[in-house]
């Protein structure tokens, strides 16, 4: 009788013809499990959400069980209001994230623990990250943490702690981690470092094509690319964590309690199976290491221990992470049908190779223009006039460090680089241009620009120089 009543109530909100039969059944079953008061409260919220987005409504119903662990029925309306607000601002994905953490995203604020908004942290955070990185990185509020290597995306607000100081430290950690990913070349954009990386299982090794897309080439070798990306990103997070512990020990020490807090919020590992279980085990192990508790052990998988050790060694480069990603995948992902993608670690954020590639192309074009303008400003008038006359009839090679008419870029010091470990070597700045046997010392700004271009393209294209005339 109760199910009939529930069905009738539901039909008034969602006509039967808008639901699949099984969806209808599942919904009735879910609602029938609630007492009358709660059922009424839930139906009221379904009536609000359904006209806005059917997908959002299903996501809401999916998260409702978890939400009701900490929500009173009378609080449902306010929670749904918050969900809709996030949905309108940042879309379905953000709304899902909002729903997944009722305590921090909703209840904290309900108790007056307002958290710290991005706008409140930005003033201190922007010079902090620019000082740390030495680059003009942008910070932007977003639904999730990520970087495209030009911009770091941070949450609109952080409310882990009651006081702004604690929440600012979380912002600081998130920004620093994303800078760590940029610094350690998560997206393999440094051509000088990446050129010699061996891609396991890639038949195109050593070819000129797709030089920019070493990461795409790597993931193309996997049957389940999403899973491979998740493994790669997590192992890179281990590597970056070691880097941050070495470079910013004060930050990592101050944030130990926060890592412990994050560890408590991770899902129950015993509910997971297969590769999902192993990846979550690594996440929790990492949080244990960072928090200093070290309660989470890797268990008795010797091969897993070898993989983690390789990423955690402090010596690993991108090439090593490629190898251990492949190794992990081959060892544990033969049967990946049970793979359940779990939320990444908060500071790890999202892996966005496409956005990073787009940002790289924008930066490349901007650097090209800046380099040509800056070089034109310092070239001697006679040399530029001669070069202008000659370059009109010359083809433009793609990349070389010798210009046709005897003028050449001399990236001094390159021969001293350790070729055996290109993955670890920073690029040296070209310090002067040799124009017809005359050395033209590059100003600091131009040297920095030339270094960036070399990192991106592998060498300084000669037409950048001929275009400056």
């Amino acid at each position: 009788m109760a199910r009939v009543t529930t069905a009738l109530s539901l039909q008034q909100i969602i006509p039967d013809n808008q639901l699949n039969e099984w969806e209808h059944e599942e919904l009735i079953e879910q609602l029938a499990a609630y007492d009358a008061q709660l059922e009424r409260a839930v139906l009221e919220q379904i009536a609000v959400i359904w006209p806005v987005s059917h997908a959002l409504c299903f996501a809401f119903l999916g998260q409702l069980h978890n939400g009701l662990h900490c929500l009173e029925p009378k609080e449902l309306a306010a929670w749904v209001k918050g969900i809709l607000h996030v949905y309108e601002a940042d879309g379905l994905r953000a709304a899902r994230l909002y729903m997944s953490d009722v305590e921090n995203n909703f209840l904290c604020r309900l108790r007056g623990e307002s958290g710290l908004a991005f706008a409140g942290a930005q003033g201190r955070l922007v010079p902090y990250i620019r000082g740390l990185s030495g680059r003009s990185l942008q910070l932007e509020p977003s639904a999730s943490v990520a970087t495209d290597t030009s911009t770091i995306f941070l949450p609109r607000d952080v409310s882990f702690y009651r006081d702004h100081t604690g929440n600012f430290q979380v912002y600081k950690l998130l920004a620093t981690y994303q800078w760590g990913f940029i610094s350690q070349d998560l997206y393999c954009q440094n051509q000088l470092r990446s050129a010699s990386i061996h891609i396991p299982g890639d038949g195109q090794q050593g070819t000129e094509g797709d030089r920019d897309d070493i990461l795409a080439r790597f993931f193309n070798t996997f049957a389940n690319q999403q899973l491979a990306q998740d493994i790669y990103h997590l192992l890179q997070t281990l590597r970056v964590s070691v880097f941050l512990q070495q470079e910013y020990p004060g930050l990592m020490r101050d944030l130990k309690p926060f890592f412990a807090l994050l560890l408590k919020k991770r899902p129950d590992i015993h509910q997971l199976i297969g590769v999902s279980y192993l990846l979550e085990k690594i996440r929790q192990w990492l949080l244990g290491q960072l928090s200093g508790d070290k309660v989470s052990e890797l268990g008795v998988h010797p091969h897993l221990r070898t993989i983690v050790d390789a990423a955690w060694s402090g010596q690993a480069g991108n090439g090593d992470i490629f190898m251990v990603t492949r190794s992990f995948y081959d060892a544990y992902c033969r049967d990946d049908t049970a793979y359940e993608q779990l939320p990444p670690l908060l500071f790890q954020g999202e892996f966005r190779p496409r956005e990073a590639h787009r940002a790289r192309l924008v930066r490349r074009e901007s650097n090209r223009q800046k380099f040509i303008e800056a070089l034109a400003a310092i070239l001697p008038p006679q040399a530029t006039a001669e070069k202008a006359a000659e370059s009109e009839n010359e083809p433009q090679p793609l990349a070389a460090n010798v210009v046709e008419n005897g003028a050449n870029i001399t990236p001094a010091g390159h021969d001293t680089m350790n070729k055996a470990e290109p993955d670890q070597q920073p690029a040296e700045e070209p310090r002067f241009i040799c124009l017809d046997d005359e050395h033209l010392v590059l100003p600091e700004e131009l040297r920095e620009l030339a270094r960036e271009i070399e990192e991106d393209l592998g060498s300084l294209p000669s037409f950048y120089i001929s275009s400056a005339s």
Partner: protein
Amino acid sequence: MQSQKIEEHFIAEKPFYLPQKNELAVALAAYGNGLPLLLKGPTGSGKTRFMQFLAWTIKRPLITVSCHDDLSTSDLVGRYLIRGGETFWLDGPMTLAVRHGAICYLDEVVEARKDTTVVIHPLADDRRQLAIEKRGELLTAPKEFMLAVSYNPGYQSVLKDMKQSTRQRFVALELNYPPPELESEIIRHEAGVKEPLAHSLVRIAAMTRGLKDSGLQEGASTRLLVHAGLLIREGIAPREACHGTITEALTDDRELVGAIDEMISSVI
């Protein structure tokens, strides 16, 4: 005529100085050829220490004048004074240096009044002469004399620029912040701190030096890092020492103060 004792201006002990490049060779070559020296570089980058080291190397007295916007020709050349009913002449630092073949070092020369160029120009070209108008005296500098000036290009403004007619008389040396390893060694030596702390201080300085686009006029100098090291060696907590010697010394902007303190707490 009265004169200060020139002996007081000799550098008795070898100053600690680690050359960045070939600045000493260039300065010695300039000295050997009677050419004046122009040191450019940010504050606290070792310009004054370099001059002390040069003076010690060539065993000449060093007379340093910190220029300011009230510094006039009279302050450099000298003046008549009345004491006990008598009038007597007191040599200024420039005259003292010329008479005794010393190094006259005008620190932050662009701060001085424009009329000082009247005495700088004839001393800085091949005449090497100093005219003391009030005494009707014309001094020709001995070969041991050297004129050296310094200025900080970061502080230049339209009002306080160095005229081409002045700067083109000098051999210019740029003294920037030392490379990290060198700077770390300087801090270890000057502040008596251990290598990891010196290394951390250098990293903090590098971070602040990248903040020009964010509103910081100049980054932390080597001098500030030495100050921080000295306080830490005396037992002040490292973050507190850095806040006092680096952060508050660099800016009054509260957001920047906060940002620099966050850099410090990340590294230390």
